[in-house]
């Protein structure tokens, strides 16, 4: 499949943004600069980047508690994200949402969601809305392996298939739901096999291969946009960090973590682009330095931003 050069470079940039943003959040959180909890997307960068590279700005996504990657890949400005993580007034959601609840409808981001599977019916409804309004938009629901065992998953996929809705379900199977290995609580190996039960295509892809993710997403999004209905894509991947920052990793064999970290998605892709002459080594380096500068700027913006006025806690409830 012929992927435009700017898209190939864009995917590298998005992955680098996610990587550097998350690494910085990891450090800042450990240093006690951020309140609450953070769930890092490190290791899964290729999925958000590969899927969102196939979407238009007005296409919809719903995200999860591990949502920073999706939000960045859909085009969010890291300054306002970082400010939201700091609980500052300048954050995307005025400090009312935080890490797990970033939304920005102008970019089609219908919210990261702290309820496992919570975004799946919402994306399905957005797809219904797009169809009834004849807008040509597509909705993508990102969710994890754990969400695929929720009723919301089953109900939504059945309805989406029955109504032939323009929606793509992207399951990021990182093998663990918090501390429970998924193979202990799910009989089948591939979640994508469930697609057959709903009457939609199910595709398994290597979630650490951004080109494989892009191609699967491209086909699914094209199918959705042309009225042929939903697709379930299962991306096999792994989170480098524990479920949330600060949680001791008592449940994963160290050799498993190491093996997956050797399969990290960015360096091989970068080498591939250089080998193919898509980008030179110096251009790639400049791209990365630019991303690091943007992350620096985001942190400075967040640090220098004011906290919301306490009484603003009573605003924004009613429309």
């Amino acid at each position, binding site marked *: 499949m012929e992927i435009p050069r700017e898209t190939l470079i864009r995917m590298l940039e998005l992955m680098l943004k996610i990587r550097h943003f998350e690494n910085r959040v990891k450090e800042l959180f450990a240093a006690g600069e951020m309140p609450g909890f953070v769930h890092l997307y490190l290791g899964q960068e290729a999925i958000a980047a590969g899927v969102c590279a196939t979407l238009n700005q007005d296409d*919809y996504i*719903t995200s999860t508690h591990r949502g920073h990657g999706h939000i960045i890949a859909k085009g969010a400005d890291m300054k306002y994200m970082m400010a939201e993580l700091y609980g500052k007034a300048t*954050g*995307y*959601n*005025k*400090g*009312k*949402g935080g890490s797990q*609840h*970033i*939304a*920005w*409808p102008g970019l089609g981001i*219908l*919210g990261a*969601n*702290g*309820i496992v599977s*919570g975004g*799946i*019916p*919402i*994306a*399905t*409804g*957005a*797809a*219904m*809305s*797009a169809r*009834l*309004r004849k*807008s040509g938009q597509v*909705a993508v629901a990102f969710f994890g392996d754990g969400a695929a065992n929720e*009723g*919301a998953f*089953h*109900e*939504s996929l*059945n*309805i989406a298939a*029955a*109504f032939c809705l323009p929606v793509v379900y992207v399951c990021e199977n990182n093998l663990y739901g918090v501390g429970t290995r998924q193979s202990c609580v799910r009989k089948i190996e591939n979640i994508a096999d469930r697609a057959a039960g709903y009457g939609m295509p199910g595709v398994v892809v290597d979630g650490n291969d951004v080109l494989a993710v892009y191609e699967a997403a491209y086909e699914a999004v094209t199918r959705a946009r042309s009225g042929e209905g939903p697709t379930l894509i299962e991306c096999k991947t792994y989170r480098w960090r524990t479920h949330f920052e600060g949680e001791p990793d008592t449940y994963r064999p160290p050799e498993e973590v190491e093996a997956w970290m050797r399969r990290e998605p960015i360096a091989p892709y970068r080498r591939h682009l250089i080998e193919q002459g898509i980008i030179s080594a110096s251009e790639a380096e400049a791209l990365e330095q630019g991303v690091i500068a943007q992350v620096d700027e985001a942190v400075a913006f967040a640090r220098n931003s004011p906290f919301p006025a306490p009484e603003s806690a009573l*605003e*924004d*409830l*009613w*429309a």
Partner: protein
Amino acid sequence: MREISFSQAIVEATAEEMRRDPNVCVWGLDVGPYGGAFGCTRGLYEEFGPERVFDMPISELGYVGMGVGAAATGLRPIVELQFSDWITLPSDALINQAAKMRYMFGGVLAVPMVLRAPVGGYLAAAGQHSNSYESMFAHIPGLKVVLPSTPYDAKGLLKSAIRDNNTVLFFEHKKLYEIKGPVPQEEYTIPLGKADIKRPGSDVTVVAYAFMVRKALAAAEQLAQEGISVEVLDLRTVSPLDEEAILNSVKKTQRLVIVQETWRRCSVGAEVAAIVAEQALDYLDAPIVRVTARDVPIPFSPVLENYVLPQEADIVAAVRRVVHA
């Protein structure tokens, strides 16, 4: 004025709003050609077609959750639950999603969805088809909760609910569906959050809503013959609650009886009593009395159900108690 039934009023309100706004659509169980289990979508499929009126599988979390997503992206969906008892199934879509999305996201989006659902007992429908869960949802910031008592109110309130930019739970009592009342041909709406004096009186305020308004009015008629003047205040919306109307009435009559069909503990009636205790205690000449369901599930046998649910005689006795206190 012409008279139409409560369910016809629901149909009329929906049809008028669908003609006015192409983004209003209806989905739920059997709402299409079947016309709804209680006839509240009759004729809509024929007029507006399968694009805007369609049947869903029995997947409450799925299709209510879809309503949230559709409402956040430009539609104004009216989602019908066949019985409100099943609202437990999509409760995450309502409580954790619809109610919070606007606030949690700093006001950047809105969820203008209406969830319509039949409530109430007195039908020997037993423990999973007789409930009134409005107290649970009135507790949740970000949800509006409406319970009309007449065809006139049903139509005007539903039109306002559809136009409202927030998520509105619109609970319709099953015993009211076939009851007829005057409804003008002309366009009108009734604002959410405004109570209505259904019968003015001077000796005691009876606060009620939904089907209990009819029981309160019947009790008031009986008490009038004893020389007791009862004011019946119909809340119409239990969230937001019309505190001003409650306080004004209590300050006038100086006695309060609260009637609700649902359970007593942590309920709408408890909230009304608390508001009056906090803000108008000095005006009261007698302790507040509540007439409610007894705190057990709704039993099947009519003998048991009638014992558990409030009756007209209970209201009469409660009013006598506060008047003669």
